[in-house]
């Protein structure tokens, strides 16, 4: 991995965020909502509205508005919420922290379950275990988060009363209760991930187990364990890194739904609230933050891949 490759990847993140900022700004600009009307209410006088427009810079040409907004964003200033009048940045960053906690737990749970499941299915290909994993994962990828969340609440919270249905308690405040509140959301967002990644691990490993070099390793008399752990797994799990990174997109989408359902005050919930109240600065900032999370996750995955994969000379 050469420094030039790292620099190129970082430049790509910059380009990505630039494109995303353009899209997000364009979408919010075309929105029929008039920020001034939203701020002052329907009964405001025309003079008052015009004054606010000047104050908000809404009278300037679109490109100038975009430039001002972008410069603000680059300085960490995402503007002021039209709903609460508070600066958008700090609120969203705090919410992002909660969402990342949720995402992190989900990814950990996914790795702990999906990788072993995929390995077992690949080794026992065509047997009952494989079929079981396969059927489960077909169901897993086919149930949307809002359905699985609702069913989980119904069973685990309402009928069995094991876990709280909704709400959020910071881990710093009460660790045990905080964890309990996180169980259902984490479970919900990780189901699709587990199902998808276990299928990917299985198919990658099946492919690797059919390569010439695995056959050569077997014919050198190495034990089945050594062949699997030393020769096959590394090559099968490498592409999985990329898949997991791409799945972060699904994960972030899932986070939006799950936070809404479980009343978890993360960035997804903030976004939904912002969208429902047409709070432009919050929508812009929220979308931008989500996209950067995804871009950074993929950057980290690419770096890990390049570091682990000795084959490719990244230039």
């Amino acid at each position, binding site marked *: 991995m050469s420094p030039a490759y790292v620099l190129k990847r970082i430049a790509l993140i910059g380009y990505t965020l630039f494109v995303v900022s353009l899209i997000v700004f364009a979408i919010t600009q075309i929105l029929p909502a008039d920020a001034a009307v939203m701020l002052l209410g329907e009964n405001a006088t025309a003079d008052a509205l015009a004054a606010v427009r000047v104050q908000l810079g809404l009278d300037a040409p679109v490109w100038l508005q975009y430039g001002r907004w972008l410069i603000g964003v680059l300085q960490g200033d995402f503007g002021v919420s039209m709903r609460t009048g508070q600066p958008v940045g700090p609120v969203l960053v705090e919410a992002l922290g909660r969402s990342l906690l949720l995402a992190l737990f989900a990814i950990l749970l996914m790795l702990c379950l999906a990788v072993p499941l995929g390995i077992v299915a690949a080794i026992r290909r065509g047997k009952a275990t494989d079929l079981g994993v396969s059927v489960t994962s077909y169901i897993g990828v*086919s149930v949307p988060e809002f359905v699985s969340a609702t069913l989980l609440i119904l069973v685990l919270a309402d009928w069995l009363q094991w876990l709280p249905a909704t709400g959020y308690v910071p881990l710093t405040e009460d660790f045990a209760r905080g964890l309990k509140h996180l169980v259902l959301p984490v479970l919900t967002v990780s189901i699709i991930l587990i199902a998808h990644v276990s299928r990917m691990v299985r198919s990658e490993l099946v492919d690797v187990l059919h390569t010439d070099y695995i056959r050569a390793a077997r014919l050198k008399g190495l034990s089945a364990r050594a062949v699997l752990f030393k020769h096959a797994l590394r090559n099968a799990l490498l592409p999985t890194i990329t898949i997991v990174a791409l799945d972060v997109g699904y994960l972030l989408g899932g986070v*939006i739904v799950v936070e809404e359902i479980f009343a978890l005050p993360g960035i997804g919930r903030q976004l939904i609230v912002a969208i429902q109240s047409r709070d432009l600065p919050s929508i812009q900032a929220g979308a931008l933050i989500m996209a950067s999370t995804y871009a950074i996750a993929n950057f980290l995955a690419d770096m890990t891949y390049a570091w682990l994969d000795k084959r490719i000379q990244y230039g």
Partner: protein
Amino acid sequence: MAELLRRMLRSPQGALGLLLVGLMLVLVIVGPWLAPYNPETFTPLQRYKPPSLQFWLGTDQYGRDILSRLLYGARATVLMAIIASALGTLAGALIGTTSAYLGGRSDEAIMRTIDAVMSIPSLLMALLIVTLLGKSSFNALLAIGIAFTPGMARVTRSVALTVRKQDYVSAAIARGEKARYIVWREMLPNVVAPIVVEMTIRVAFAVMLFATLSFLGLGAQPPAPEWGLMVSESRRFMHLSPWMILWPSLAIATVAIGFNLLGDGLRDALNPRT
């Protein structure tokens, strides 16, 4: 076609997928005629009924027959998902082919931009577009189509590039064929198959996304018998009558499973090596 069907039926995924999707398409077409009741008729005396001989799947909070609502809703949900995926596929295929055809720096610029757009999660993209266009089924369809476009562009481009490198394309160029013939007669038939597979799998995802948008109140609007909306509306009553939420959830999952299986079956059947 008959050959393809035979190959599909050979694998369990293909056979089951064909069965589920076939059944679903029948419901889309004749569902409204099969429905025993009007899906929007309130029957105040028959609310929250569990499944019975009279109401096979029970009734909802307004006493509407859930089976009839599901049968009517098949059209709203499945058809919408298929159209949205087809839309995204078409747009994506256009961009992907163009990018592969242009090659060089234009290709790189287009693909980097596509990558950038893909860093907005599909659901968020759809949410933003629906916010922009206003909440309605049609706008949700458009939003999903747009959200799928970059992904399909990527797939199409990589398939087109693989085909472009094949010697039969080189042979056509060396023979002096026109670009139009090469693209339409030599490349397209070989590009279509993997794209159809990808699109089929995306229909499953579109069903889920569409239902999710409706669930969040941004897709179909009440009293439409859209499945996601049905789940959303019945959440408040799930303690009272779990049936209300179970049936539409099952319907969504079944359709999604059906299209996932169909896609995997198609992939195997279209692979000339097996």
